[in-house]
């Protein structure tokens, strides 16, 4: 067991407490797979964006440590960041170690959301690396007495070509000292962290590592049970906490009967504050038993509609803001049109459905708050926690440790607030792990949406007008000031940022209007992958398909008539060619065998990046079950950093989209969420997983882009269009459960 070297801020040599982790760069503070954590690195004195030293340090042995405020949710970002930095610096991949998310060690880079890690997240790291390389070359030039433009760099060694003995390593040049160099940092007001500018230019070609499928650094640990998750953090003296949930959302805690858990061994304390009620015990199973057994009296609650009434509720809910994008005069065109098509599309409330529930360890003692968390927005969670606990921000340290994939949910890491409250009450470190019922019942959710679409068609089949009007709560209110514990205790400030309620389409119509009504919150909400985009794309791409069928045109050809963006057209052509698309008029209603209809659908998505899908499905006409057999997906990705990792991301996101389309709907009665386990809120299982063929369209001249959301967007529409192709029936309400499909088939 190696001891921590005390942080020497002049020399910047860092040793972290490492036990059994010599095979991968550590991504966070000292963690052990085998023994409890007993020390964390001291916080750095300065982590401001303008200082090059805040971002990277180089030790005498050439090891490069990179500090980033972004975090890895299991999408391979730790690896791709290391590829990008190693390429800018010209050092070996193995020489780069990432420190991620610890608020005591890393610069504030805002939230790891919006698929922005590869672009906004990586930009400062690349800039710092390029600047460092430039400085090192200048130092080398002095030492080797050779002009910079006559030097070569490889694997962290600067040499003079033709004179092999005249060389020096990065480590020898910098000797663990600080760079003492300032860069220019600007902060776009989007919560995504700073943009950094130096004097060195970033690489645009000649990449050694970028573009290669470097094996991810975390897979070995994950596959052998040695990888540190926030769920495996163990702190000396740590005890266990669980929260008791009210029977209704917004209920008031009236009375707690402490005697009801008198017989629970290991009980340390019952903690109640406002409507927050929790238990702390020595052992984990004792906390679960105590939470289950504790008797409490609650009254009242905030009524909500039943989930079956959600669309009606959305249309009539209090409106906060309406945003309209208008072109031409849709109303006039619709009045003149030979035919008007109308359709309403509905999307339910959905869960992020993390496999590993929200989990945090908090140690609140002597006015200091230290928390281990899988948060996606470490600095905001830190600020929130400070405000919640009534302490200065400087007293709070949030140490990021990888959680299970959260897809947006851990923008609001509820376990952090629960654990901090309980730790403060008992004066010991407390670990809180949400139960499955806690997650399904109480996680901040992806809001529901209803959309009305209309199109005006001329006699020659031309689309004269297109309109979408939608109603939805904001998808981002949960990201600040909304810990569940804060709401229960009272006084949570909340957050009013509006997002996800408006959409765009990829088409050129003479008259077009997109209207988004933001309404008040229904259930506590936070963004789930592709917030607003997946819902809007479902409606738009289904409706485009409805129009194509109306004018008896091949769905692909119909799209090309109106598609303005050449990149979207490229992805469509690529997907169609790969899938062997044959022009036809939908529906075809091909029956493979008695009672099973087969269909093929197409759809595309536009925006910063573009995708297109062709899906082959079959529908059991008796049971209503939709099976997706195969999906071909083509996407533009900018410069691909790690092709294998990119492909896996795409496939994963697409499968998540298939799951949401076929299976997922949060159900609630007038008081609380009612589907609280995996049977009642199912997600896709192995027998139903389709084949996927992925075509990544590399665009080396363009910036890299994240793929975690792009590939999820087209899933619902491509399936809906394929079902129409197979049966002539339009599914306009997600999820496409067998009951819904059967009912639609019977209606004809």
């Amino acid at each position, binding site marked *: 067991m190696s001891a921590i070297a005390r942080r020497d801020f002049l020399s910047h040599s860092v040793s972290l407490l490492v036990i059994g982790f010599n*095979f991968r760069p550590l991504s966070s503070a000292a963690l052990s*797979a085998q*023994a409890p954590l007993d020390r964390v690195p001291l916080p750095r004195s300065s982590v401001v964006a303008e200082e090059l030293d805040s971002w990277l340090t180089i030790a005498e042995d050439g090891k490069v440590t990179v500090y980033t405020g972004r975090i890895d*949710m*299991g*999408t*391979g970002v730790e690896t791709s960041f290391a590829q990008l930095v190693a390429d800018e610096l010209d050092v070996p991949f193995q020489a780069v170690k990432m420190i991620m998310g610890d608020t005591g060690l890393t610069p504030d880079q805002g939230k790891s959301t919006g698929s922005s890690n590869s672009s906004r997240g990586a930009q400062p790291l690349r800039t710092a690396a390029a600047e460092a390389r430039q400085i090192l070359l200048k130092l080398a030039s002095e030492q080797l007495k050779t002009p910079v433009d006559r030097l070569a760099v490889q694997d962290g060694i600067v040499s003079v070509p033709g004179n092999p003995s005249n060389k020096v390593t990065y480590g020898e040049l910098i000797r663990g000292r600080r760079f003492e160099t300032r860069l220019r940092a600007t902060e776009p007001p989007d919560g995504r962290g700073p943009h950094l500018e130096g004097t060195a230019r970033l690489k645009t070609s000649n990449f050694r590592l970028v573009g290669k499928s470097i*094996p*991810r650094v*975390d*897979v*070995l*640990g*994950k*596959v*052998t*049970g*040695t990888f*540190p*998750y926030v*769920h*495996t953090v*163990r702190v000396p003296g740590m005890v266990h906490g669980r929260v008791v949930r009210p029977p209704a959302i917004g209920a008031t805690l009236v009375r707690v009967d402490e005697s009801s858990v008198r017989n629970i*061994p290991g009980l340390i304390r019952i903690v109640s504050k406002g409507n927050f009620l929790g238990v702390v015990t020595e*052992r*984990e*199973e004792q906390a*679960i038993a105590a939470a289950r057994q504790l008797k409490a009296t609650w009254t009242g609650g905030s009524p909500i509609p039943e989930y079956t009434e959600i669309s009606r509720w959305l249309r009539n809910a209090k409106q906060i803001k309406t945003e309209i994008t208008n072109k031409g005069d849709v109303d006039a065109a619709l009045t003149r049109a030979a035919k008007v098509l109308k359709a309403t599309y509905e999307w339910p409330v959905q869960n992020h*459905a*993390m*496999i*590993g*529930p929200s989990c945090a360890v908090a140690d609140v003692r002597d006015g200091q708050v230290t928390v281990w968390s899988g948060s996606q927005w470490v600095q905001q969670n830190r600020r929130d926690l400070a405000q919640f606990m009534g302490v200065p921000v400087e007293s709070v340290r949030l140490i990021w440790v*990888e*959680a*299970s*994939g959260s*897809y947006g949910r851990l923008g609001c890491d509820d376990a952090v607030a629960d654990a901090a409250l309980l730790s403060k009450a008992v004066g010991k470190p407390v670990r809180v*792990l949400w139960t*499955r019922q806690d997650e399904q019942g109480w996680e901040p959710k992806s809001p529901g949406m209803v959309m009305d679409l209309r199109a005006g068609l001329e006699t020659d089949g031309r689309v004269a007008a297109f309109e979408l009007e939608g109603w939805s709560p904001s998808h981002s209110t949960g990201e600040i000031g909304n810990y569940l514990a804060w709401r229960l205790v009272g006084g949570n400030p909340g957050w009013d940022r509006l997002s996800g309620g408006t959409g765009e389409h990829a088409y050129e119509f003479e008259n077009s209007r997109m209207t988004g009504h933001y309404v008040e919150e229904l259930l506590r909400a936070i963004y789930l992958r592709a917030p607003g985009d997946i819902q809007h794309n479902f409606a738009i791409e289904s409706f485009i398909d409805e129009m194509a069928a109306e004018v008896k045109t091949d769905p692909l050809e119909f799209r090309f008539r109106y598609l303005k963006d050449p990149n979207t057209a490229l992805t469509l052509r690529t997907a169609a060619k790969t899938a062997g698309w044959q022009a036809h008029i939908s529906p075809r209603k091909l029956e493979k065998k008695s009672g099973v209809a087969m269909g093929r659908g197409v759809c595309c998505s536009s925006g910063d990046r573009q995708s297109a899908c062709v899906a082959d499905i079959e529908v059991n006409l008796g049971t209503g079950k939709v099976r997706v057999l195969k999906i071909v997906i083509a996407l533009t990705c900018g410069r691909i950093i790690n092709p*294998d990792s990119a492909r*896996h991301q795409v*496939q*994963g*996101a*697409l*499968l*998540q989209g298939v*799951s949401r389309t076929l299976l997922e709907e949060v159900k609630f009665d007038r008081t609380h969420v009612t589907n609280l*386990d*995996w*049977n009642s809120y199912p*997600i*896709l*299982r*192995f*027998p139903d*997983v389709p*084949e*996927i063929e992925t075509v990544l369209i590399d665009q080396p001249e363009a910036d890299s882009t994240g793929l975690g959301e792009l590939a999820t967007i087209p899933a619902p529409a491509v399936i809906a269009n394929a079902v129409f192709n197979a049966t002539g029936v339009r599914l306009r309400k997600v999820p496409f459960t067998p009951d819904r499909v059967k009912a639609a088939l019977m209606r004809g």
Partner: protein
Amino acid sequence: MKISLRVNSRSHIVDVDPRAPLLFVLENDLQLNGPKFGCGMAQCGACTVIVEGKAIRSCVTPVSTVGGKEIVTLEGLGTPDRPHPIQQAFIETQAAQCGYCINGMIMTAKAFLDEHPRPTDKEIREALAGNLCRCGTHLEILSAIRRAAERGWHSPKKARQESQHGRQA
């Protein structure tokens, strides 16, 4: 109550409530990180360990029911320096995103392949039907298991078959 456990070929004595779920004893008393809590209801498979050759869900298994039996967890299967062939297959196919479900995938698949060394794709999918993955790593996981099946390893069933035929193992 004192219960003796055999985990990854080592003996332990733990003093716990006999009804305590095996998962929590493995994690909290033995500091093992392989099995994970996902649901506590045997619906997701994240907590899977192998007891006497069978994959079981440790979140619903009282610790007293496995006293004295051979328990294998993910870290007992293989190490970073010497991974088990099935772990090696997962590494080669890069079959992990967040990786939280991977313990369950590997342990379930290992027990399954020990009994069915030459499965069809359909049989693999059925065998893993009780293991959930939210990141959508299913295709890579299937690819890893197929690769592991093709390569094989010395399994109890194979040893039984070969001794029946009088062949050398």
